[in-house]
């Protein structure tokens, strides 16, 4: 992985989040905030309905990087801002999020990948960057 150039575009992935995805992530992560499974709880906080865990979006987005570099142990750091929530309707279609990445810096054997996550063309993560060891 030493000959990676700035501008390299990583293969993008899509992920569909349904209510079942959220329940599964709630159990796995032990984040049982009811806004991620109850429309009533979401409405009480002024949300239009149940939204995905920000950390589900963050964790799924990193698959772009781990699929590309082949070894999750190479990931040195990862940052995201949660700029927009991902509403997940109570149907079989759910919400489909598209994830991509571009190498924006290469220094001392460490690639910086700028990560993008969009729902219907709108960014849901801001300033998302991962550093990956490439030696």
């Amino acid at each position, binding site marked *: 992985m030493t000959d990676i150039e700035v501008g390299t575009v990583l293969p993008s992935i899509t992920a569909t989040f349904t209510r079942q*995805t959220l329940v599964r992530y709630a159990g796995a992560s032990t984040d049982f905030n009811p806004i991620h499974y109850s429309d009533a709880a979401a409405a009480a906080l002024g949300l239009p309905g149940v939204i995905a865990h920000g950390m589900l979006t963050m964790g799924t987005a990193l698959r772009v990087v781990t699929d590309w570099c082949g070894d*999750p142990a190479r990931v040195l750091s990862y940052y*995201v801002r949660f700029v927009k929530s991902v509403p997940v309707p109570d149907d079989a279609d759910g919400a489909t999020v598209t994830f991509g990445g571009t190498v924006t810096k290469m220094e001392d054997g460490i690639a910086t990948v700028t990560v993008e996550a969009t729902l219907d063309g709108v960014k849901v993560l801001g300033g998302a960057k991962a550093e990956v060891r490439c030696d």
Partner: protein
Amino acid sequence: MISETHVGRSYPPSAPYLVSAAKVAEFAAALGDADNPAYAGPDAVAPPTFAVLLSSAAWQAMFDDPELELSLSSTVHTDQRFTWHRPLRVGDAVTATLTIDRVRARGNSAFISLTVALDADGERVCEAASTLLHSWPEGKAA
């Protein structure tokens, strides 16, 4: 109520959490990555963001601090940074220690920046830094 005077406050380390093969597999599956060979077998590592399971559990110590008047249900997670020194592995016994880094009060809300240090067998494994936006009911200024 939480204020700049609480910057630097730390809480005692959590009880050790034992990273199990079953939990790693469950977490990978929840991210749609069940088939990734890195997360299975005798040398399994945890998905990088598995660290949130341990770091967010450590937030409870801060929410339980009566002086700060915080509640999880009035909190929005605004950003997250992980720095890994090595991957979490099956068999690690991990402690989590929370420190408050920064408090910026704005009217009836406050941005709280905190870092949770994750250690296994006396070795630093990961730092998980979060910014939380906490809101109090109208009329109660921070």
